[in-house]
């Protein structure tokens, strides 16, 4: 099944059902995943951009409000501006952990009354308010929901800003592991347990009682008992999702980096992790790169007229210094791209997306990036 030339980013954008963008914070992951979504929509696919970026700028740029109940399309004039002609082909949604958790509870409780009762649980209400960890726990569930619903040809996921961007894959697994029989039974003491298990349960109970305070511990136990069923069914759907994410015909993981040593070392780490976790590696995107621009020339003194003003003389000296910096960046980025291509080998692409002056905070810039994606 291995081919000698791996699919290009453009090909993945045209054919896959799920594209997951991973990378360290600050590499332009959200921008890249939005550009990928726009690229697919320009090709006529129905695309959902699923983002966890809480910053307002993406919603400002696309004209899709944050905190919506469900995905929404940008206003028609912005879609037209982005060269997207078929209606309904681009939607965006910002991950709202509380909404995802509520949906999960409704889906897996016996009836509405039980769902309402569970959602009123004090521990549940506080937990869903906590930012820490909740994005990781709900990203998979949200992805599952949208892929199952089948209203989109492609879902592009911009992963949570974790140090390890693949944490979101582990999160639900950790809950599942916790709920898998033994450990969970230790947490909720079981009269039928053997001596050893009872001893372990007492230890966990003592430690947690002292740690959390006895009242809190009992409340937490009651919470887990009430939600056990929801968690169990939820983690089952997450395992289905995990399988889809491991299928190279359906999914591609795109590792996004920028030309900084930290971002690069993180992306190599993700690559290792992805291989370890058997996730289909799509390729590397070197974002904010100067590697593609090669039509430029270095300014030479010959350009300056003999009778130049002193302002022009000073300006030209500054231009020369800036040119030297830019030229050095171009050479550095070409080397980096070559290195990424070598590392990707026959298993993935390496593509540079251009650095956009002033940042990619408008539709035109995103369209320029989308074009670069399709030309890759």
């Amino acid at each position, binding site marked *: 099944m291995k081919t000698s030339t791996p699919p290009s980013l453009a090909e993945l954008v045209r054919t896959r059902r799920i594209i997951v963008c991973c990378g360290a*914070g*600050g*590499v332009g992951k959200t921008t890249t995943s939005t550009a990928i979504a726009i690229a697919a929509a320009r090709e006529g696919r129905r695309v959902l951009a699923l983002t*966890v970026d809480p*910053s307002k*700028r993406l919603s400002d740029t696309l004209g899709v409000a944050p905190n919506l109940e469900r995905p929404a399309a940008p206003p028609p004039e912005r879609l037209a501006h982005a060269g997207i002609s078929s209606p309904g082909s681009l939607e965006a949604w910002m991950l709202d952990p509380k909404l995802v958790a509520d949906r999960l509870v409704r889906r897996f409780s016996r009836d509405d009354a039980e769902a309402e009762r569970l959602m009123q649980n004090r521990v549940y209400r*506080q*937990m869903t308010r*906590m*930012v*820490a*960890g*909740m994005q*990781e726990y709900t990203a998979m569930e949200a992805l599952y929901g949208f892929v199952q619903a089948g209203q989109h040809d492609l879902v592009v996921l911009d992963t949570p*800003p974790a*140090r390890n961007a693949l944490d979101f894959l582990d999160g639900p697994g*950790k*809950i599942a*592991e916790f709920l898998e029989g033994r*450990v969970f039974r230790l947490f909720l003491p079981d009269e039928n347990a053997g001596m050893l298990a009872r001893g*372990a349960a007492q*230890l*966990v109970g*003592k*430690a*947690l009682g*002292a*740690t*959390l*305070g*006895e*009242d*809190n511990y009992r409340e937490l136990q009651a919470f887990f008992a009430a939600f056990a069923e929801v968690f169990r069914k939820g983690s089952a759907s997450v395992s289905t999702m995990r399988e889809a994410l491991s299928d190279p015909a359906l999914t591609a993981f795109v590792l996004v980096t920028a030309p*900084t*040593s*930290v*971002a690069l070392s993180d992306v190599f*780490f993700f690559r290792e992790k992805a291989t370890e976790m058997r996730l289909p590696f799509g390729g590397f995107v070197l974002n904010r790169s100067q590697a593609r621009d090669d*039509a*430029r*020339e*270095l*300014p030479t003194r010959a*350009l*300056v007229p003999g009778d130049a003003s002193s302002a*022009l003389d000073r*300006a*030209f000296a*500054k*231009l020369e210094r*800036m*040119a*030297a*910096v*830019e*030229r050095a960046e171009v050479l550095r980025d070409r080397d980096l791209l070559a290195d990424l291509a070598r590392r990707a080998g026959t298993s993935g692409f390496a593509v540079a997306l251009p650095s956009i002056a*002033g*940042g*990619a*905070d408008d539709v035109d810039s995103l369209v320029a990036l989308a074009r670069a994606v399709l030309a890759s």
Partner: protein
Amino acid sequence: MLHPPNDLARSIPEIATSRVVLVVGKGGVGRTTLTGALALAAARAGRRVLVTEVGDPDGHESALARLFGRATFPATPVDLAEGVRGAVLHAREGHARFLRTVLPVPALVRAAIASKSLARLLDAAPSFNEMGVFYHLLDLMKEERAAGVPAHDLLIVDMPATGHALALTALPEPLLELMPHGPIADAMREGQAILYDARRTAAVVVTLPEVLPVNESLELVAGLRRTRIPVTRVVVNKVQDDELDADELAALAPLLEGRELYGAARVRSTAARARAVERVKAEAGAAISTVPELPLVGRELVERLATMLAPTQGGDA
């Protein structure tokens, strides 16, 4: 070489006056380099400094540790340079330290720490991880080298990138509502008393003189203030010292016309950079410092910045 306008400081005096300095900003703005430089600068001004970051002592290489010639930091402070020690803030270490304070019997502590079941529970629940990190930080703050004498005068924390930094600083409030009593609540309140106190804690937000980083840093300032963390300063990093003035830009414009030259993009974004800095000054509601872009990397860059940022140098460079 041009100097920054005289309303912009180059030094960061918080490193001389605060107990805790949180260095916050999105990835790629130079947060880690600046953290290293601030640690060296404070140590050279005579303070005992502990420099920390969130991570794993057995995890993959840390950029901050690399600045001090190490792959990672251990969970207990280690000497890095004259007056500078380093440690990683690690969830599991925090959990262990917490268990040691709340469990009455050492044997029980050992058993609890070794318990796979407990480890799995702590791994599974959202926020338990952040809780461990938070407690580890608190415990390091309280370390003493003699009775009543703190082990470190200053803790500098290279905070995680934006989203996770806010998750960490936002942790105590919902947690206290969830568990208003008990040892966790006590620890959270103790931490809050230090972190919300502007006399002891200063959050310094790092950004770049560009549109997007500035927008995001202003959101970050607002986010931190919502979690009641005192934001005292925004540091605009990589400010170019040889920006063109209006006359120079006008003189150069015809020469750039119709040509594709290296350097032209930087020249054209001169005004955008200036506007970005103006926007931070107008909207951050905090002191502003600028740090120049230097043609150096790694430890060399850190050394040079440490000299520039030394609190003894006073206000303007």
